[in-house]
């Protein structure tokens, strides 16, 4: 009996190894067909069949690690999709930043040349500074507005559900549409309300303020929703206890509610920080970089944020490699800033 079982295992093992090998060969064959430019219509099927055989082989192989293999198999689709859509492009992006890639092909490696050119160009340095300023103001304004609105929507005011929906609504409109609508408002409506005034979008500082206004108006409702849940999750018993102890509204707010929902603040500040940094659609639609500002006798686009700068480098200048380089640095900066913020905020959170 034992002999039979052992034989069985041996057969099983040979069989699964065979399956893996055949599957592997099929995959290689299909890939070869594709790379060599063959138009054979079965190459997709061969690839799939090969992959299925490999999976079957791996699954059937008799081993103690069987459970682990099953786990990996189930994770595979997700990991595969993530790799294809995120990891591979990301790695390729870093790779391209060291070449003279044109969007079609590259002919040589240029080393750190792109990085050096990038930091030497005034427009990039300027857009870095202006993005930073925008981020600071926008983070402050959005969170202030959102938290105030959240307090309003959790108070006993009448029709608070209506307010909640109304404040959230701007967030449902796409940024580009919103941008053009607001551009019209700044250019036409405001100039006729304050008759004779020039459009806000023609002055560098006011144009930045205009983007800040729209961005706050659009995003505050979304952040408000998160604050509302935060405020509602503060335990009632603690609030009651503070009431018994004679804490007034302000003390309740600053000493109890806000510390108790510190993790909500972490999330909201993180979201606004990352979002302001990556601001693109409103920027493109409202000003597209205009108006210009004179800086050291040279013109710069006063409201060109980093994302727009990257876009213009790649698309308008047709310098894909340089644009890619800027994008890589953009990622690194964003990662550093946001991780630092999360680290600091986490420290302040209260353990429940």
């Amino acid at each position: 009996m034992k002999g039979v079982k052992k034989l069985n295992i041996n057969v099983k093992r040979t069989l699964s190894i065979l399956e893996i090998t055949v599957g592997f060969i099929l995959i290689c064959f299909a890939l070869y067909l594709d790379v060599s430019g063959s138009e054979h219509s079965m190459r997709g099927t061969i690839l799939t069949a090969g992959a299925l055989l490999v999976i079957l082989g791996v699954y059937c192989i008799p081993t103690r690690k069987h459970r682990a293999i099953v786990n990996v198999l189930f994770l595979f689709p997700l990991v595969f999709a993530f790799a294809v859509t995120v990891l591979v492009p990301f790695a390729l992006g870093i790779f391209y930043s060291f070449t003279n890639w044109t969007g079609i092909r590259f002919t040589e490696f240029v080393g750190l040349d792109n990085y050096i050119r990038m930091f030497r160009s005034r427009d990039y340095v300027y857009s870095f500074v202006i993005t930073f300023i925008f981020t600071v103001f926008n983070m402050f304004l959005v969170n202030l507005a959102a938290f105030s609105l959240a307090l309003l929507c959790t108070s006993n005011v009448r029709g608070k559900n209506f307010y909640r929906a109304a404040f959230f609504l701007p967030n449902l409109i796409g940024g580009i549409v919103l941008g053009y609508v607001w551009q019209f408002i700044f250019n036409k409506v405001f100039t006729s309300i304050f008759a004779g005034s020039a459009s806000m979008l023609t002055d560098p500082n006011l144009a930045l303020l205009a983007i800040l206004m729209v961005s706050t108006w659009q995003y505050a409702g979304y952040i408000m929703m998160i604050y509302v849940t935060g405020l509602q999750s503060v335990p009632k018993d603690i609030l009651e206890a503070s009431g018994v102890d004679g804490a007034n509204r302000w003390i309740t707010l600053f000493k109890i509610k806000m510390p108790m929902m510190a993790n909500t603040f972490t999330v909201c500040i993180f979201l606004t920080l990352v979002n302001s940094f990556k601001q693109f659609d409103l920027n493109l639609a409202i000003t597209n970089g205009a108006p210009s500002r004179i800086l050291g006798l040279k013109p710069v686009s006063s409201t060109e944020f980093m994302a727009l700068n990257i876009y213009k480098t790649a698309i308008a200048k047709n310098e894909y490699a340089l644009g890619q380089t800027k994008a890589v640095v953009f990622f690194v900066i964003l990662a550093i800033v946001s991780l630092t913020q999360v680290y600091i905020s986490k420290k302040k959170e209260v353990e429940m």
Partner: protein
Amino acid sequence: MKKRFLAVALACTMMAATMTGCGSKADSTGSSTEGNTASESEASGDAIRIVNGKIEIDKQLKAFAESYEEKTGQEVVIESLGGGVDINGTLKGYLAADNMPDMFVFGGAGDYKTWADYMTDLSEEEWASQTEFAFKAEDGKTVGFPYAVEGYGITYNAAILEQAGIDPAGLTNYDAYKAAFEKIDGMKEELGIDAVCSVAAESGQMYWSTANHIFGYYLSAGLERDDTTYIDMLKEGKVDEKRLGEFADFTKLLFDYADPTVLISGTYDDQLALWAQGKTAFVTQGNWIDPSLPTYNVEFACGIAPLAFLQEDTAGVLADCPSWWAVYNEGKNIDACKAFLNDLATSEEGQNCLVKECGMISPYTTCTVEPETPLAVALKSYVDAGNTYAWQWTKMPEGIAQNATGSVFELYARGELDRDEFVAMLSAAIADYTAQ
């Protein structure tokens, strides 16, 4: 055991679902149109597929393609991109996905550099000898098929000029414009207009009008079509200060007599509406506004005058082909493409399509069909008289208008620069940009 089987089956299905995405490339040639492309492009193997960059003529081209198929049996699929789509980016995607069309649009020297390796030599074609607007590579080979001529200068409202007693034919130098602008400005109430001209110089959206089109006159006005003096200087980062100075004077004139609101914050629509509603006498746009005129119920006669910025006379306007079609050299239907292009350029149906249906001007000397829209007629008279200058500005470094010089024009329009500062800053911007 049953459970196990189920698990394996599920895993396999998921795997298959992920993998099939990679394998089905061959079956779906041409079906990956994006949301804002106008056409369905389900093509069979022998059909030729064209990526057209002018969405306005999509319908007309499709109608022509249909009649072409009836005539010859050759299926032609038109895929139109436009309305803000980044055509180059889309094409790069097509190339990477092995889904290149048989013919694609490209817009000048910059694009040519990008796509040079993928273009077929079309010098031997019948139409190539019948036009001076074909795109020629550095070695003299014809690679771009011209389908239209566009031209611009300063478009005028003939009724207003007549009322003011100004002959548009005399607008050929700086002094003539200065006198005309002053005269019209003095008669504003009589003529019922708000400003003399409609110009838009905001750098975010109108950079192409100022820093490409108007600046184009600095590069080409008064030169032979193949004279590249000033564009060559610009590519080296240099400018002719005297010429640029005269250009600055003229630009100042334009900006001074323009409607101030539209000048610093107007969009293309604002600029056009102002003129089309009869509130200004001039607008700095070209014959591409023809199709928009009916929307504003324009009934007055109009024409195009040169942006003659020099002291001496320059009587021609800038006219050229705005973009060309190239034949993809690794396509399978190159001969069919060539036949189609020949038909479009030389047959009567083809000429009818381009001129009558699309409202464009044919770049071909053999074309007998006459345009009907007012500005096309006006432009045609310049082309027929050989009174045109080339669009040298399309050879400027890519993105210079959007990223560098457009801002200078805006600052000038806002009055933050005087004439000399404008010249200095523009020269510096060009030098910086070309040095990058």
